[in-house]
C-alpha cells in the first residue's frame, strides 16, 4: 500500500484558535459589518463628491451601490429642496470640464438654493442607467425631483440600462426600490429570457439577496472610499496608488479649454468621427414619396416600445431628456442632404420623446465649435450654454409640477 497523504500541515493553532470562539466571532463579525455598512451608506460618506470620476466608477473597479448614491443625495439635499439628478453619459458627466467649471456646477448656480443638483452621470451610460435608478429609488423621500439625462436620437432607452451599470438596476429591482410597472416588467422578462442563462440569473439573484441581508458591497465601498482600496486597476497605474482610499483622488478632469479650439479636433480621427455623426440618422431614415427624409416605421415602433417602458408613467413628466447634437464643425462637413436628415432626426426624436410623455429638447444647434472639446463633449463654455438651457427647462418643469410653491420648512 502507498504511503498515506498528510492530513495536517503540522501547524499547531490550538494556542490561538478555538473553533467555538471562532464561530461566535464569525457570526458577530458579520452582524457588526452589516450594521456598519447600513449605517455609513444610509448617512453618506462622500464628503467631497463632485461626480463619479473614473476612480469612483466601474472603470476603476469601484461600483457605487444604490444605497451609497442615495446616501449622497440625503447628505446634500434637504427634503424642502428640489432634487435634480443628472444622469446620462460622459457628456453630462462633464468630461473635459474641470470640477469647478463643470456644467452642473453652473446649473446649480443658476437654479439657486431651492434646488440641489447631483451629477450621477457615468461614462458610456444610457439615460436609464445610474442616476435614473437612484432618482426612482428616491421618489418617496424626494417627491419633488427632476431627472435630467442626455441621449442621442433613437438610441433605445432600455429600461434595464446597459452594462457595466446594469447592476444598479438589478439591485434596485430586487430590493423593491423600483415602482411596479408592467411595460418595464415585460422588457425585463424578455431580457432574462434572452440574454442570461438560468445559472447567471440565479447567481445575480443570490448575490443581490445576500447583499440585501449583509450589505457587503456597501461595506467594501465604504472601506475602499475612506480607508484603503484593494483592487489594482487601469486608472491607478502604480501599485501604491491602487491601495489608496478613493477619497484621496481629487477630481482632476482635464480642461478642454487649455487647448486652443483649433487644436482640439484630431484630423486623423475625422473619418471615424464623420461615420459616427452620420450614424446619428443614417440607419433610421428612408425616402418618402416626395423625396423627403422619413423616419422608418420599424425604428419608430422600437423607440415607442422602449420609451414607453423606460420610466414609470408617473415619473415620465419629471424626466427631461436632452438630445446631444454633434460639434457643428463635423455637422458642417455633412452634405446638405445629410444635414437635412440629421436635423430631422433631432426634430423627430424630440417629438417622439414628448409623445411618450417625457419632457425633451435638443441642445447644440446654435453652439460654436469652441463650445466643444471634441466631436461630442462640451468645453466649459459649451457647458455654460447647456446649463442655461437646462436651468430654464427645469424651472419650467418645477413650475408645472408645483415644486415651486412655498412650503413650511421641516422642523
Amino acid at each position, binding site marked *: 500500500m*502507498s504511503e*498515506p497523504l498528510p492530513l495536517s500541515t503540522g501547524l499547531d493553532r490550538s494556542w490561538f484558535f478555538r473553533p467555538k470562539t471562532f464561530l461566535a466571532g464569525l457570526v458577530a463579525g458579520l452582524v457588526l459589518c452589516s450594521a456598519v455598512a447600513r449605517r455609513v451608506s444610509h448617512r453618506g460618506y462622500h464628503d467631497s463628491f463632485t461626480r463619479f470620476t473614473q476612480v469612483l466608477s466601474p472603470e476603476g473597479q469601484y461600483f457605487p451601490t444604490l444605497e451609497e448614491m442615495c446616501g449622497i443625495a440625503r447628505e446634500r439635499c434637504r427634503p424642502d429642496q428640489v432634487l435634480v439628478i443628472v444622469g446620462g453619459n460622459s457628456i453630462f458627466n462633464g468630461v473635459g470640464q474641470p470640477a469647478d467649471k463643470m456644467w452642473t456646477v453652473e446649473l446649480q448656480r443658476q437654479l439657486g438654493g431651492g434646488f440641489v443638483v447631483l451629477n450621477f452621470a457615468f461614462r458610456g451610460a444610457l439615460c436609464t442607467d445610474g442616476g435614473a435608478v437612484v432618482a426612482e429609488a428616491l421618489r418617496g423621500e424626494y417627491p419633488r425631483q427632476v431627472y435630467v439625462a442626455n441621449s442621442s436620437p433613437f438610441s433605445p432607452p432600455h429600461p434595464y440600462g446597459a452594462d457595466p451599470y446594469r447592476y444598479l438596476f438589478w439591485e434596485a429591482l430586487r430590493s423593491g426600490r423600483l415602482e411596479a410597472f408592467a411595460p418595464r416588467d415585460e422588457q425585463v422578462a424578455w431580457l432574462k429570457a434572452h440574454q442570461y442563462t438560468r445559472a447567471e440569473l440565479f447567481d445575480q439573484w443570490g448575490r443581490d439577496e445576500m447583499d440585501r441581508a449583509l450589505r457587503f458591497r456597501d461595506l467594501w465601498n465604504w472601506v475602499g472610499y475612506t480607508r484603503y482600496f484593494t483592487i489594482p486597476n487601469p486608472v491607478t497605474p502604480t501599485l501604491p496608488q*491602487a491601495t489608496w482610499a478613493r477619497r484621496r483622488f481629487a477630481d482632476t478632469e482635464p480642461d478642454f479649454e487649455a487647448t486652443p479650439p483649433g487644436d482640439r479636433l484630431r484630423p486623423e480621427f475625422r473619418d471615424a468621427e464623420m461615420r459616427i455623426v452620420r450614424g446619428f440618422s443614417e440607419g433610421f431614415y428612408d425616402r418618402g414619396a416626395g423625396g423627403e427624409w422619413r423616419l422608418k416605421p420599424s425604428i419608430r415602433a422600437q423607440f415607442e416600445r422602449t420609451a414607453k417602458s423606460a420610466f414609470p408613467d408617473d415619473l415620465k413628466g419629471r424626466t427631461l431628456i436632452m438630445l446631444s447634437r454633434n460639434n457643428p464643425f463635423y455637422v458642417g462637413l455633412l452634405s446638405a442632404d445629410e444635414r437635412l436628415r440629421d436635423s430631422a432626426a433631432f426634430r423627430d426624436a424630440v417629438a417622439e420623446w414628448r409623445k411618450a410623455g417625457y419632457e425633451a429638447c435638443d441642445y447644440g444647434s446654435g453652439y460654436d465649435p469652441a463650445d466643444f472639446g471634441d466631436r461630442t463633449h462640451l468645453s466649459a463654455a459649451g457647458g455654460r450654454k447647456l446649463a442655461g438651457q437646462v436651468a430654464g427647462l427645469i424651472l419650467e418643469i418645477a413650475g408645472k409640477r408645483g415644486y415651486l410653491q412655498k412650503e413650511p420648512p421641516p422642523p
Partner: protein
Amino acid sequence: MIFTTYWFLAFAVLVVAGYWLVPRAAWRLWFLGLACVVFHAHFAGPAGMAPIIVLMIVTYLAGLSRDRRACLAVMALCVGALCFYKYTLFLVNAALEPWSPALAGSLRSAAKSVMPGAPPLGVSFFAFEFVHYLFEVRSGGAPIRNPLKFVLFAIFFPSLVAGPIKRYTQFLPSLEEGCVRFRLDNLGEGFLRIATGFAKKVIIADNLTLYVDATQPHFASLGPFGRWLVVLALSGRILMDFSGYSDIAIGFARLLGVTLPENFNWPYLARNLQDFWQRWHISLSFWIRDYVYIPLGGSRHGLARRVLNGLIAFGLCGLWHGPAWHFVLWGLYHGLGLTVCGSYARVPVVGPLLRKGFVREPLAGLALTQLFACTGWLLFFYPLPEAVQMARLLFGL
C-alpha cells in the same frame, strides 16, 4: 470558479444543513450521495457526466473483481479517457501537424465532432483517483464493496473540481467516522479553512492576477525591481490560487465531518527542491511518485534510469496542468532540478562542500530553491520564447 458562485454557496448551505439534520449516519451518506450527483449534474451537464459514470462503473466492477488484468485494463481506459478528452488536440498538433498537416486537420475535425466543447468537469481528478484505486486494489488492497461509498469516493463534491486527489484508504474511514456525530469543532475548522481559502483566492490571488496582467506586457520596460516584483507576484498568485482552492475544498469537507489530505504546506519555506515537492501540491506530487515514478523503477536502477524516470514523471506532472508544451517544459525543468538536487553531493570535492554549506546555512538553500521555483513559474505561465526572454531580462543577460 465554481466555489465563488452563489449557486454553490446556496447548495453548500442546504447540503451541510440537510446532512446534519438527517437523523441517522447511514441516511446521511445517501443524502450526501444525492447531493454529489446534483452538484455534478449541475456543473458538468449530461455530456460531462456520461463519460464519468461509465468510468465509475467499470472502475467499481474491476475493483470488485480484484482481477489484476481487469484492473490494468480499466486503468488504461481511465488514462485513455483522460488523454482523449484533454490531450487529443494537443497530441494531434504536436505529433502529426509537422509531418502531415492534412491528416492532422482531418483528425482534428473528427475529434471535435465526437468530443464535447470542453473536457468533462474534473476529468483529471477522476482519472487519477480511479487509477490510484485500481492500482491499490491490484496490489492487494481491499476494494470498496458498497456502491454508495464508491460513488461518494468518486464524486465527493468538495474535492471534485480542484482536488486534493484523495486516497480511498484515508477518505472512507474519515467519511464513516465523520458522519456519525456532528462536532462543533469541525464546523469551526471548516469555516476557518473556507474563509482562509476565499481570502487567498479573492483578495490575494485575484488581485495579484490583475497586477500581473497589467504589468507583464511592459516587462521589458520595467526596472530590475519591477521585473522581480512581477515574478514574485506570479509566484504568490499561483500559490494563493491553488492553495486557496484546496483550503475551500478541505473546509467544505470538514463541515461534513470529512478530513481531506493537505495539499500545500508552506512550499516557499522549502530548503531544497525535494523539500519543495513534499510541500507543493502534495496530493499530485505524491500521486506522481507512487503511480508513475516508483512503478517506472524509481531510483532503483542506477543514476541514468533515475534521471530518466524523474524526467518522465515530471514531464507528465507538467502536462497534467494543461495540454501545452510550456507545461511539459516546466515539469522537465523541475525534473532536472530534482536530479541536480539529488546528485550534486556526489560531485567530487565541490559536492560535499556545497552540501555542508547548505546544512550550515539553511537560508542559502531556501533562497536558491525559491529562486529556482519562482523563475520556473515563467515557464508555467508563458510560452517558451516569451519565458526565456523574460528570464534573460530578469537576470540581465
